[in-house]
């Protein structure tokens, strides 16, 4: 059996690997064994970085589909580039003089679609324009967060579920965005929220990851929001300890695939946001999402 058609280099101690030797613009040329190996590596390392891959929308989606079926776009549909309903555009660039509603996306730590009964397995974010200085994305390893819990707290959390919702009392995600007027009736309710175990076993690696996030996790099952807040706040702080993080400085042509089952991510707005219209501060990213 031939070895993998790519090589990998660790981005940090426990989180992230850079993958080299694959041409993502020709996903049909990637062997199935390599697809399987990429999933395995993703599950272990949480994020995969592919550098110098200046993809267009078609190639981005084709590579995503090579890895599995796409997730429903749901509410993100309203931020799709024309003609590509499966892509989510994240940018600070004005359109027709209007501010972008996604210029401040990922302002809280989260994993994608945790409010759905079956959250997205993975997401792929590609960088077209990066600010000259900053505009980073940070990733945190939820295996490490889980492993740091004491046996006692782990035993308590093991039997506990939490409610994850787009409309969490903590969420900042809807701030500055247009109301959901164009969403079809019932869609909001379907996507309103769901219960997930606080400690979740990763289907590929068998390891357990902490699965609460500051943006969407509102409360523990049976508990009030006020009662849940102290322990949730503790867990959110624990989850984002610098020791569990990889921080990515983007270059155009970068593509990062992350595993929503064992990582969280966050964009710290670490650039001159007061002058986000200046050309050196432009940021343009596209995300695809795997079911």
């Amino acid at each position, binding site marked *: 059996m031939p070895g993998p058609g790519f090589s990998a280099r660790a981005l940090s101690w426990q989180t992230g690997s850079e993958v080299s030797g694959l041409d993502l613009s020709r996903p049909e040329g990637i062997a199935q064994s390599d697809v399987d190996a990429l999933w395995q590596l993703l599950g272990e390392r949480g994020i995969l970085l592919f550098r110098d891959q200046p993809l267009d929308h078609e190639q981005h989606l084709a590579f995503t589909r090579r890895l599995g079926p796409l997730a429903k776009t749901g509410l993100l549909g309203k931020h799709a580039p024309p003609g590509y309903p499966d892509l989510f555009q994240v940018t600070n660039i004005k359109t027709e003089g209007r501010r972008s509603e996604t210029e401040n996306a990922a302002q809280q730590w989260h994993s994608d679609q945790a409010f759905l009964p079956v959250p997205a397995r993975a997401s792929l974010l590609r960088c077209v324009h990066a600010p000259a200085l900053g505009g980073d994305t940070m990733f945190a390893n939820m295996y490490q967060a889980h492993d740091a819990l004491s046996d006692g*707290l782990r035993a308590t959390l093991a039997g*506990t579920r939490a409610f994850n919702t787009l409309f969490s009392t903590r969420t900042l995600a809807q701030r500055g965005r247009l109301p959901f007027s164009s969403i079809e009736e019932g869609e909001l309710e379907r996507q309103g929220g769901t219960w997930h175990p606080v400690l979740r076993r990763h289907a590929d690696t068998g390891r357990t990851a902490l699965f609460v996030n500051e943006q969407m996790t509102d409360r*523990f*099952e049976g508990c*009030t929001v006020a009662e849940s807040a102290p322990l949730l706040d503790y867990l959110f702080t624990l989850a984002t300890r610098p020791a569990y993080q990889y921080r990515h400085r983007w270059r155009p042509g970068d593509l990062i695939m992350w595993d929503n089952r064992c990582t969280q991510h966050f964009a710290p707005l670490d650039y001159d946001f007061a002058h986000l219209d200046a050309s050196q501060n432009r940021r343009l990213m596209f995300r695809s999402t795997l079911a």
Partner: protein
Amino acid sequence: MEAVKEAPTAPAAQGQAQFETRPLNWRFGMEILGVDLKHSEQLSDASIQAMWKLLGERGILLFRKQGLNHDQHLAFTRRFGPLAVTGLTARYAPPGYPDIFTVTNIKKDGQRSETENAAQQWHTDQTFLKVPARASMLRCEIPPQNGGDTMFSDMYHVYDELSDGLKAMLEPLQAFHTLFSTRSKVMAGRKTLSEEELRRVEGEQGAMQPVILKHPDTGRKALYINEQCVDHFEGWTIDESKPLLEYLYKLVEHPKYTYRHRWQAGDVVMWDNRCTQHYAPLDYDFEHRDAPQNHRLMFRSTLA
């Protein structure tokens, strides 16, 4: 609870119980009227049993204008059962009464009292022992002119108002109670333990207790952790425990669960350590505590 009347009225529960009652608060605290504790040997067994039952239900009992001396205080205490070991409080016993704990701000031989700031944190007595004190009895000899109150909080009520989810989360947990908790202020400003005292408290350094205590008399559940003695849940780190503990400690001191007692000379307050906590807020002119109008002198006995 149903037997409790709104105003001083008929004798309580048992037919032979010879006292009247008046609630101190909506859910807890009861004043007992019509008894003379100087002659507690004359109280019927039925009265003592009725008081004990009421104590478990209401958490604290107040007896006004009793004017007891040490012997009468101890005699009444013993009507409810054996006294608790005194442990560390023995160093604050008045001469000749090793079972009484003096709480005062009055200087002795020019030295500050080490108990002038006692009960500066919410707590229950002796939870750091394997078998904590069931009840305590505090009598007031001299209250400050303004203030010097003691506050009590109802741990049944706190428990009852937790959500089902948090009740379920706390139910299986134990917590470690110790005088030497990272949160404890109890030894601050006190002289260090002597060899002899250390030996005496060797077995008292800490004990595991359930976070939710089922009161053995009433069968009701009460929150049973306190800020002075508990800094972690069993198996959890101190850091992990802190946020949830602090949430619970904040509940404990919520005014809706508390009764605040303004002392009069001659008062005796008996409290149940299994369903209440208490705290002394230093709500008087502590800076001038040597002034006679600020003197405070209290004596406590403790039931095993």
